[in-house]
């Protein structure tokens, strides 16, 4: 493998064993993974048609009969594969806490209030150019039990399929300037060079005057990338 190829495929993923993130202590595999040449199944992936997603699922501010509390934001970006090709027609699923930092989920017992106007789950399909767009409210930070006075920075969970099993990614998007990132073991587990890739950019062009702030966050899916014809 040439040095250029090596650099291009260097992974900035966090290690699985990262004891500062306490849940990983009993859950991270103890043995190294075996390198696998992707087989027929790994080189393909499920295709979700446009009918899988309701047209309004991209807007997390319109899931109930009332508007959610918080700063309305637009989050958009472009998804490309490791060769820079846009990943069109792929399913993007997101979820996050409300503006007070509370998830509408039975496991979350944080004392911050629930918002009857906010469920916090959304989905969309990327367009022909690989672009996705969500409208939501900015999530709040929340405390968790990892260590004394632990707080998760504000974040949006993203799940992406890509064009093949090899590209499947679940990750989190963070907000620029959040002081909690420096103290968060989950964010800090990522090698230094990879951390900026998880932070959205405030983008005045994405902002809608008198309506919503705008953030831009592009995503690169690594792994074997089938050409669109292969599907």
């Amino acid at each position: 493998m040439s040095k250029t190829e090596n650099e291009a495929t260097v992974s900035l993923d966090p290690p699985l064993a990262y004891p500062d993130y306490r849940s990983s202590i009993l859950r991270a595999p103890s043995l190294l993974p075996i390198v696998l040449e992707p087989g027929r199944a790994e080189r393909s992936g499920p295709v979700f048609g446009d009918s899988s997603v309701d047209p309004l699922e991209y807007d997390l501010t319109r899931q109930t009969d009332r508007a959610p509390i918080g700063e309305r934001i637009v989050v958009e970006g472009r998804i490309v594969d490791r060769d820079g090709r846009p990943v069109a027609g792929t399913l993007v699923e997101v979820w996050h806490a409300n503006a007070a930092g509370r998830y509408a989920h039975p496991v979350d017992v944080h004392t911050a209030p629930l918002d009857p106007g906010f469920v916090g789950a959304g989905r969309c399909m990327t367009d022909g150019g690989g672009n996705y767009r969500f409208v939501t409210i900015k999530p709040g930070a929340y405390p968790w039990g990892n260590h004394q006075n632990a707080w998760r920075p504000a974040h949006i969970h993203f799940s992406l399929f890509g064009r093949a099993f090899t590209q499947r990614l679940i990750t989190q998007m963070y907000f620029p300037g959040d002081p909690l990132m420096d103290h968060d073991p989950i964010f800090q587990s990522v090698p230094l060079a990879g951390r900026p890739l998880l932070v959205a950019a405030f983008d005045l062009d994405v902002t809608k005057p008198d309506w919503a702030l705008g953030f831009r966050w592009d995503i690169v899916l690594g792994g074997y990338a089938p050409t669109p014809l292969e599907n």
Partner: protein
Amino acid sequence: MAAPTPSQTIGPFFHLTLGSAGPARIVGEDHPGATVLSGRVLDGAGDGVNDALVELWDGHHFARCHSESDGGFSFVVAKPAPVDDAQYFAVSVFARGLLGRLVTRCYFPDQAANATDPVLAAVAPDRRATLIAASGSDGLRFDICLQGERETVFFAL
């Protein structure tokens, strides 16, 4: 070429968007040759992982299922038609405590092709069984042991 976006943990609240309770149907129950594939996700202490997400993909069909309070999950799958290559599911596992996806394979048992499958052959013999579902009276059994003595073989793609 831009570096790939790094992974982060799925966390414990994914059911808002990704949750599907089992049995997750790859095929309908009345599909000929339908059988249940069930198992548990277990951690390094041997305890059930109650907040995992398991996804199966065989090249044609996809299903996902979250684990229950005892770590249990189940799918309704179809026994594959006999073909030359060993039939398997590509498996993704996500959970709180996992900073990235775990990838494994679940091979159907009792396939002649398993004996000559190059991926199975490359795995140490004492770990090979962790990649093959076991046949039982209730259907197929496939546990996913994240860590420890019976640790499942995981792959790097």
